[in-house]
């Protein structure tokens, strides 16, 4: 009886919603499946998809141009001794914010594609970053930070 009422609840919820359907981009989705053993943490820019793809047991940050469905080179971003935790791409695809772990330290970084440079963003007061989000221009960053057992969100304006 409980199951019936739950199903009815879902049906009533769906009936109250829009009937238009999002269309899967099948060809792109096939390519996203084929190239890696698993993929997580998607972040969309205007024409960009950043995500963490696992290949050969190792996760790497990938940026795909959705117009031609091809990955773009990210020199200096994926270090062999670092494990990416989460990421966010700016709307224009020029910047990627990354939380990554290396030598038992979890730190926040900003990658600028035009310079191929990875810059550490210090947290003040110190804490352990986890989830991150950039705005469209990549000049404002929001990051979830653990401090003394509590999760805060810091806003950081970047030059």
């Amino acid at each position, binding site marked *: 009886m409980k199951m019936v009422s*739950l*199903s009815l*609840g*879902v049906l009533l*919820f*769906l009936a*109250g*919603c*829009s009937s*238009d*359907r*999002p*269309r*899967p*981009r099948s060809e*792109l*989705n096939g390519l*996203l*499946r084929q190239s890696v*053993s*698993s*993929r*997580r*943490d*998607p*972040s*969309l*820019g*205007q024409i960009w*998809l950043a*995500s963490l793809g696992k290949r050969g047991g190792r996760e790497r940050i990938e940026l795909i141009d*959705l117009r031609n469905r091809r990955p773009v080179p990210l020199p200096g971003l994926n270090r062999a001794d670092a494990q990416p935790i989460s990421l966010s791409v700016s*709307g224009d695809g020029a910047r990627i914010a990354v939380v990554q772990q290396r030598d038992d330290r979890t730190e926040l970084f900003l990658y600028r594609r035009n310079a191929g440079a990875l810059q550490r*963003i210090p947290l*003040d007061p110190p804490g352990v970053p*986890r*989830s*991150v*989000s*950039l*705005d*469209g*221009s990549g*000049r*404002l*960053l*929001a*990051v*979830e*930070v653990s401090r003394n057992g*509590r*999760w*805060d*969100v*810091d*806003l*950081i*304006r*970047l*030059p």
Partner: protein
Amino acid sequence: MERASGGLLATSQQDPALSGNGKWLAVISDLRGRQTVQLRNVINGSIQALPQLKRHQPHSSPSLSWNGRYIALITQHGRRRMAVIADRLNGRLHPIQLPGGRDPIQVSLAPDAQTLALQVTDQGLWRVEIFDLSDVLEIDRPAGQALSTPPLTPAP
């Protein structure tokens, strides 16, 4: 580097998401034991009501369009996790149906709200699937951005 400390609210905050224009910040807060999305104006700190999302907790993984008109996130309906997109302009709620019993884990909405990326579990593996929303949502473009129009031709 300019900073604004977190902790503007008394509760714990997780899963931040900025709108494309940087004016809106969505976070997941623990409100009376329920993980609930909150939308905050970054400039004045005010909290905006999201009446169409006040149930179906726990909420997770919010994502905002350019002007914050649309907010995509994962909700719970009975035993099912479901990705939905709320339109703050007209109050409509758009569910994203996933065939084959796959569970949505994480969601990202493109700034113009015309593309959605979903992380799903599929036979124990994580996948990312992309959806075209151009039949479902209006474009949420930056203010003052020119629309593409055909070039003007001189009258004969």
